[in-house]
């Protein structure tokens, strides 16, 4: 086994499960998260020789995953528009009919409220609330300042409080 393969297998071991949850929260579909994770790790494998250690491996992998996920959602949005539909409506339907969703009605409301957030606020909320990343980690991944992230997260919380009948915070 080459050195590169060893590093790759270590990345898979350390991050695949956490990344799956990260992606799953964005796409709201088990199958899409599974497909997307394959794509993400293909990218990680292809880009591994050019990884220079300027950022932490964790940050680098997480950045690839987040960018791929957001690109995937943008493509989905275009596809939905071509079907004369909207991605938000389709996502709400996914949450409503998701066979893997085992939560309460409030948790379902929360998932739907997150859908309605603007992209940056949604990104920060998912990474902070569900992925349990620190502001410093999110800042390193997204390239946004900690102050701006805190402000975005605060606004996102306020919007969710207003949209959900029982506050999760």
């Amino acid at each position, binding site marked *: 086994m080459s050195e590169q393969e060893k590093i790759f297998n270590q990345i898979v071991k350390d991050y*695949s499960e956490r990344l799956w949850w990260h992606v799953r929260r964005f796409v709201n579909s088990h199958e899409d998260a599974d497909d997307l994770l394959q794509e993400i790790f293909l990218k990680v494998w292809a880009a591994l020789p050019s990884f220079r250690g300027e950022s932490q491996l964790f940050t680098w992998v997480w950045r690839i995953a987040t960018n791929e996920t957001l690109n995937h959602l943008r493509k989905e949005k275009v596809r939905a528009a071509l079907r004369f539909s909207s991605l938000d409506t389709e996502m709400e339907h996914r949450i409503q009919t998701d066979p*893997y969703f085992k939560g309460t009605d409030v*948790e379902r409301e929360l998932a739907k409220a997150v859908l309605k957030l603007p992209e940056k606020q949604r990104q920060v909320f998912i990474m902070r609330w569900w992925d349990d990343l620190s502001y410093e980690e999110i800042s390193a991944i997204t390239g946004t300042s900690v102050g701006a992230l805190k402000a975005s997260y605060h606004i996102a919380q306020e919007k969710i409080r207003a949209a959900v009948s029982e506050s999760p915070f």
Partner: protein
Amino acid sequence: MTKKSDISTPEGYFEDLQQRLNAIPAAAPAREPSKVRRFAPYLAYAASLALLVAVGNFILRKSTTPAVAEDPYWDYIAYLSDALDPDGYWEDYPEQEASLSNEDIVNFLLAENVSLEQLVSYEEGY
């Protein structure tokens, strides 16, 4: 509200996922970084050096030589302005003008058989 209890996964899903992900290297061999990418830092240094030399050369030439000196157009304009300048033209013959006195002119006219009466009448304005 616990954060991850709302979504479930099939039994043994993450073990299966890891196995599939670990199979990626066998299915997609790693690409070596391209030669351009490998030599990119050196190319950047060389390009910076070339730019520095070019800028330095330009500044040096600009500060030591008038911009119009080597331009044939301006040489031609200078030639024309010299040729059309009446003062400039006469300044080319100062010695000849100074050597012709009134006496020389009178002597020349007398030698040409012009009479003194005629010379006086010219002088008086006839």
